[in-house]
């Protein structure tokens, strides 16, 4: 087999033993890698119905088909566990050096079972596994932990995925960081902490061989060259932060905890402003010729010295979404989040939720007491220092931070029980995962795409904002096309998430990002790597299968049709300003679109998967368990 080793490494922390599982080539042809294979490994290894923090919830890594080769942006891996935020599949992606080290260690996947009694650092040194004490790493930030580990081994090729202090404290949306990139969403960091894993390090010394290296290199050269042209200019020059002004213009820039979709100070938190005042350098993940990460620094003022990579989703969550028009506070908040290992998006929405609790009088100044402000502080929308302080309190689980660290779904429940309030009406999460930076009241296809999303409020899994924004659909209304649009857009995204390749390369194959533009080239890359004979249809099926296994996982864990919902605010509170003013997505509209979507997927009208469909996709054992 080319491109794969055919081997999955299993590590059992209860017994401190490991074993190797061999998988047949047919299995790889169905699950490929990334989020699809990671979810499948989770399906095979989880104790069904367990709590996310239970030792029966495995940590599943799945490598990428192109990791360790020169194929641009192919250095990514998938990470899956049951999510402590949503109780369903938590599938995330990260990339860069770690995944390539794992490829060179010749593991297609790693499954970590059980839990350790003491904090440990797992070293995978080719085929050797060591359980090292993590005492000297505890309390260190994500980046510091990695540097420390490389210093101990004296080898820059030892690459680590780590959790930071927020993970150690079991902030529910803590994440896993490697090489400055994060498996960002759904709370992997706290799952790692429940097993007392501080870091997983990998050293791989073997070379990666592919079926047809000369063709693969030729294609890689061409894509690399195309990636220097106009198709990626947005990512290279300003990065995704340039979306701030666009989103503001179209009226879906989350503002003041999704009360509004336009922000008066959008200019001050835009990618353009960032570029002019704060940019230090643009850097890339390993194996990426684009380089989109805008490393930005605060040079003066109380937050001077803060530096991290800034992108749109993180930026809007901590700036406009909290009403904060001060870029230095925004960079500081993202910096705290990245160094302590938290999902910046969930953190930002949890902070804006706390601000709205204060603005509506549910929480008072004295509820915000902390060491820094013993008398409490007033976290009104726009208070940058309050945002920074709340980020620190969440990281340390100090005072109100301990409640906000549970995510908005649980935090609202706790606060409502104590104060007899209705803060759940503005707790902006879907299935427990905080909403991304697109206010969906005026992006109706996307609203449904989010509702049916397998991991909750995520813009990476449903790409239905794109047709809404591009005008392919009327974003203010609903019609009979929306089911197909949402279904095809999430399957499109799932192809990239499964290979996995970064979606920023999508226009560099032929200049066109649609299926016709990208799938033939992706098929050629797969074939040159593996020696298989994939065509357009096989590539298309990658996404269908990826999405199906995730949905199947959720059904087996107890998913119900009513879980496919959007926040109360998007259904009942219209915005007052901007192009989106006056619009909501009514229950009727949502139910109508969900019905269309289930039909487009070939599912039952309640959203369950027919047996025959699963068998046709090659998932006979899944059909046996959850097919109807």
């Amino acid at each position, binding site marked *: 087999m080319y491109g794969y080793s055919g081997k999955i490494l299993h590590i059992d922390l209860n017994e401190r033993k490991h074993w190797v599982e061999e998988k047949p080539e047919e299995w790889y042809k169905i699950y490929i890698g990334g989020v699809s294979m990671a979810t499948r490994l989770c399906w095979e290894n989880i104790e069904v119905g367990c709590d996310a923090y239970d030792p029966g919830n495995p940590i599943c890594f799945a490598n990428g088909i192109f990791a*360790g*080769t*020169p194929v641009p942006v192919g250095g990514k891996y998938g990470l899956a566990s049951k999510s402590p935020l949503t109780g369903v599949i938590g599938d995330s992606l990260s990339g860069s*050096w770690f995944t*390539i080290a794992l490829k*060179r260690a010749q593991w297609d996947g790693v499954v970590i079972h059980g839990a350790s009694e003491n904090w440990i650092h797992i070293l995978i040194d080719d085929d050797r596994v060591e359980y090292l004490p993590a005492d000297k790493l505890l309390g260190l930030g994500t*980046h510091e932990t990695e540097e420390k580990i490389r210093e101990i081994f004296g080898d*820059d*090729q030892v690459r680590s995925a780590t959790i930071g202090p927020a993970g150690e404290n079991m902030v529910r949306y803590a994440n896993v960081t490697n090489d*400055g990139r994060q498996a960002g969403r759904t709370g992997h960091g706290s799952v790692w902490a429940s097993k007392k894993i501080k870091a997983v390090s990998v050293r*791989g*010394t*073997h*070379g*990666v*061989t*592919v079926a047809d*290296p000369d063709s693969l*290199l030729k294609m890689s*050269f061409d894509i*690399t*060259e195309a*990636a*220097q042209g106009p198709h990626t200019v947005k990512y290279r020059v300003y990065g995704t932060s340039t979306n701030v002004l666009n989103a503001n213009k179209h009226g879906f820039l989350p503002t003041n905890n999704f009360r509004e979709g336009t922000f008066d100070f959008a200019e001050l938190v835009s990618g353009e402003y960032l570029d002019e005042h704060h940019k*230090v*350098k*643009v*850097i*890339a*993940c*390993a*194996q*990426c*010729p684009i*380089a989109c990460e805008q*490393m930005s620094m605060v040079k003066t003022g109380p937050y001077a010295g803060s*530096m991290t990579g800034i992108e749109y989703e993180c930026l809007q969550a901590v700036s406009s979404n909290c009403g904060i028009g001060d870029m230095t506070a925004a960079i500081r908040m993202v910096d705290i989040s990245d160094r302590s290992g938290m999902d910046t998006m969930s953190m930002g929405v949890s902070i804006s939720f706390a601000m709205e609790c204060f603005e509506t009088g549910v929480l008072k100044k004295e509820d915000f007491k902390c060491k820094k402000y013993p008398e409490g502080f007033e976290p009104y929308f726009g208070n940058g220092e309050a945002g920074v302080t709340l980020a620190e309190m969440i990281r340390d689980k100090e005072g109100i931070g301990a409640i906000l660290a549970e995510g908005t779904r649980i935090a609202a429940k706790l606060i409502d029980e104590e104060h007899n309030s209705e803060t759940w009406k503005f707790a902006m999460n879907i299935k427990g995962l905080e909403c991304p930076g697109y206010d969906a009241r005026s992006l109706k296809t996307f609203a449904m795409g989010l509702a049916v999303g397998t991991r909750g409020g995520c813009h990476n899994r449903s790409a239905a904002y794109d047709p809404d924004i591009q005008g392919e659909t009327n974003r203010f209304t609903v019609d009979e096309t929306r089911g197909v649009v949402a279904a095809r857009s999430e399957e499109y995204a799932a192809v990239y998430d499964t290979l996995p390749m970064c979606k920023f390369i999508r226009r560099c194959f032929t200049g066109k990002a649609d299926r016709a533009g990208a799938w033939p080239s992706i098929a050629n890359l797969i074939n040159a790597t593996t020696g298989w004979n994939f065509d357009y249809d096989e590539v298309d099926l990658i996404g269908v299968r990826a999405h199906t296994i995730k949905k199947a996982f959720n059904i087996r864990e107890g998913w119900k049709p009513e879980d496919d919902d959007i926040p109360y605010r998007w259904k009942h509170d219209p915005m007052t300003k901007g192009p989106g003013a006056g619009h909501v997505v009514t229950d009727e509209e949502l139910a109508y679109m969900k019905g269309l979507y289930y039909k487009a997927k070939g599912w039952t009208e309640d959203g369950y998967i027919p047996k025959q469909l699963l068998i046709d996709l090659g998932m006979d054992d899944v059909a046996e368990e959850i097919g109807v």
Partner: protein
Amino acid sequence: MVASTSKFKYVVCDPELCIGCQLCEYICSYTKTGEFNSYRSRIRTVRVDEVLITAVACRTCENAPCVIACTRDALSQDQETGIIRIDPTKCDGCAWCIEACDFGAISINHLTKLAEFCNQCEDVEEGPQCVKICPKDALEYTTPDQRAQRTRHKLIKTSLEFPQKAKDPR
């Protein structure tokens, strides 16, 4: 900053332009071994403090310290190109050359236990493959003199404000 005393051409990286993508390591290891493996690359990317990024390969020093340090006379320097050559029958992987190198540009092949050096792809017609693949043109294959000349030209262009001659007089 330690400076190389080389008068020869060698592969050098501009840290301002380098993004840390490692494509140079892939192409190098493939050219030399037929596999993609950073461990076998003779050019190494370095990333420190997140934004300090560069790549390092042999800088063909004059009176190369690695050659002098070799206890078994396994190393020699080509007087025409500055390329360091290794006699595999003599090298025993003792790593004195690694200690002597001011740039950390030498590594030991963990399989053969021999020291490995950038040989500027002298056996490949197109020259150094890493320079060819670098997506940001951060790598170049030049002599220190050539780079000094360019620096002088850049300096005079940026510091003296004479009217610029039109690029295309037509």
